[in-house]
């Protein structure tokens, strides 16, 4: 079975993505690994494919965006929206790439054991999803932190999805592509949460959907309160007795640490796994990449693009028609128009 596995990220997540691809390569030397990058390299940084664990890079401008010009389309999205939105068009493309199976993994995930059982699942099923939670929470604070959060952002965590590239899998990819090209926004009051909330529909819209109930997949701070991690003397790591397959290291830093501390408690193995991940991040960090770097976070003159500028551009077709390259600066640019309209502070 030919497998294509991809992750979507910007250069500020390159360290995390490298950890993921390193672990993927270790466990699946024969899979095709694709880096889907919605960014441009920072000055002085060049990707050397020979030194990376992924096989190829797909840039946002390589995608079929349903006829929309990529700059205009991209401008409508902030960094999270953009990196999640491109998953749809690429997954749709992957269905005609010759691969039998396409798997998406967030860049901040990492494998601890092979994902081979997924391929067995995909013999009878065509779409695999992992819910954020597999068991009800037991305390009010955990209900608020985890159950309510999943109600707001989506039942399934789209840090992972696996499909057959034909049949229902391909039909899902096309539908997701269509939705993400038009409505992949962080707009919880209006029922949207980027690419993820959409997938609450999947078990109803499609056949051959399997909700993975194995706690060894997609372990994260939001579900660790109900999962017990153990490391045995044979060297295996288990979660509620099942082999640990992959971990989702969401919110690397003090926020993630606080959540882990709150919900992992004395399960010290959880902290061992986090320490391992942090050591790998240190190993794969490129110090030349500035923190929070995103090439599409600024206009051509380097000034930051405000969320409100994106939302206005998103809402008004006339502006999109008038300014096909909204990233431009200088005369006749969208930025100049914003300045004239009093919506942008002049540069000091």
């Amino acid at each position, binding site marked *: 079975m030919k497998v294509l596995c991809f992750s979507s990220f910007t250069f500020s997540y390159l360290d995390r993505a490298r950890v993921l691809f390193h672990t993927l390569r270790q466990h699946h030397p024969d899979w095709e690994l694709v880096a889907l990058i919605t960014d441009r390299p920072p000055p002085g940084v060049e990707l050397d494919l020979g030194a990376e664990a992924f096989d190829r890079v797909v840039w946002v401008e390589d995608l079929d965006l349903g006829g929309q010009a990529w700059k205009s389309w991209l401008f409508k999205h902030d960094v999270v929206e953009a990196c999640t939105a491109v998953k749809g068009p690429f997954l749709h493309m992957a269905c005609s790439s010759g691969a039998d199976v396409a798997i998406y993994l967030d860049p901040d995930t990492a494998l601890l054991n092979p994902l081979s059982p997924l391929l067995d699942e995909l013999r009878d099923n065509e779409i695999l999803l992992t819910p954020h939670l597999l068991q009800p929470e037991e305390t009010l604070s955990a209900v608020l932190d985890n159950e309510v959060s999943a109600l707001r952002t989506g039942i399934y965590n789209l840090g992972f999805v696996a499909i057959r590239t034909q049949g229902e899998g391909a039909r899902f990819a096309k539908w997701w592509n269509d939705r993400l090209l038009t409505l992949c926004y962080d707009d919880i009051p209006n029922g949207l949460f980027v690419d993820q909330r959409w997938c609450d529909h999947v078990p109803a819209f499609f056949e051959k959907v399997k909700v993975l109930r194995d706690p060894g997949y997609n372990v994260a701070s939001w579900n660790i309160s109900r999962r017990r991690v153990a*490391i045995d*003397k*044979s*060297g295996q790591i288990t979660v509620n007795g099942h082999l640990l397959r992959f971990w989702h290291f969401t919110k690397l830093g003090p926020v993630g640490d606080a959540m882990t501390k709150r919900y992992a*408690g004395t399960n*010290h193995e959880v*902290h*061992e796994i986090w*320490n*391992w991940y942090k050591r790998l991040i240190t190993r794969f960090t490129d110090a030349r990449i500035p923190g929070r770097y995103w090439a599409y976070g600024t206009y051509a003159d380097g000034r930051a693009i405000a969320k409100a500028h994106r939302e206005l551009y998103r809402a008004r077709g006339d502006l999109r028609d008038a300014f096909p390259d909204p990233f431009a600066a200088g005369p006749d640019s969208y930025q100049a128009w914003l300045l004239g309209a009093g919506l942008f502070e002049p540069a000091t």
Partner: protein
Amino acid sequence: MTAEAQTEAIDPVRAEFDVEYYLATYADVAAAGVDPFEHFMTFGWREGRNPSKRFIMAPYLEANPDIAAAGVNPFAHYIVTGRGEGRSLKIDLGFRYEILKVASSLDERVRALRESIPDPEPTDVEKLVSALRQVGAPTRLHVTISHDDFTANLGGVQLCLTRESEAMRALGATHIHLYPAAPGLVIEFERLNPMVGVLINGERVGVFSPETLVERLGPFATGMTPTFAVHSFLGHGIVAMTAVLRAMDAKEGFFWIHDFASVCANYALMRNDVAFCGAPPPDSPACSVCLYGRRRRIHLAEHARFFQTFAMTVLAPSQAALDLWLSSFPVRPADAKVHPHAKLRKRKTDGEGGDVGGPLKVAFLGMPAPHKGWPVFERLVERFVDDPRYEFHHFGKIQDPTVEAKFTAVEPAPGVAEPMAAAVEAAGIDVALIWSLCPETFCFTAYEAVAGGAKVVTNPDAGNVPRFVAETRNGLIAEDEHALMALFARGDVLSLARRDHGRTLYSLSYSKMSADFMAEGLS
């Protein structure tokens, strides 16, 4: 009712305030000559000062942020209502979490040690030449390799080497001991030629490069086939040591399993310094997430190559150590034997002793280090310190003042055969908690505890300790920390230890280490 007792009844906060601790901790308060309790109640709590060693402000407020936000005196609140509400004194994620929280990578640790203790400058080679000349032309030569200068430090392995050296010299051999000039956490790999310290017949000669040793020791050993014993390669470059031994025409030797550095870069097999790993396959997920995992491969490969170069007889001080080593080392040695460092020899069986009444005296023996189970003892003391059934002791070199156990300084000393046994006997210790988190290959401490009349309480991961306890019926094995706490809570440990306390006492009869196998071969 005394005036003091009346005050206690009226003011429970004052009753639990530790005047002595407060004055000892805050010299400015002592110097001011004010009432320490009044000081704490007025100023001290606002300044974050601790009212007793059992109530530490910062962790209490971290665990109870609502109290911090309310701006009330946390200690007074705890005594009056907080304790009744079941509030905890700290967010207690256990000692393993505390270790993991501050863990640095192994590379960083290796680098830090190398920077803090750099290699010394080499000694003038003439000193080596002259020392070898003084030895003359010996007919027997015995070489040992270990992690330090055994004459400069005292400990289990060092005492073993002292006995081996003395025994070999008594057999007429010249003894050359090689040790890393600067200590190492792991075997040397990055540096090709770390400096090597040399002792000849127990006398320090100096530090030399491996090339110098090849040049000088090679010709010195001409005509002899030296015997050798490796006690530890920590801090050494194995390639360099191999070259030195080959230059001396060594062919077969002994390899002692004092620890598991031949199997992993963590010689105690403590995964991430928090749990005994069982030495699983090096490509296992457990080794992947372990900070010693990457260097483990180097340790295995370098030791394996050494075993392929020389015909090695493995000597383990216990069957437990040998079993674990054989199951985890990739190369079959030429031979493997169990050779205990010491045996118990009865010195008193007069039937006296038995239950002397009073609280059960429970002691932790030795270094208060996490891998020796000190945090578990700490937890035990914390939980039962006010229980009249128990009295807690700590015997060792270094005191941990945060633990409420009676401390007695005990140090290994030349001329005192079993200092720990003597201390255990003198204090009438009933139970020694030997809760090593990792496998002990022998554990003199357990032998000394029993020699001094105590029973040993241990866990299944402590290597030779549970085997020794089971075989000699001198204690019990609690499955884990929860089971240990339950033993003390129910009082099961009382009947175990008290029945025949002190009826049999022992001394230790020691082996001569590698020398026991070479007497005939050396003729």
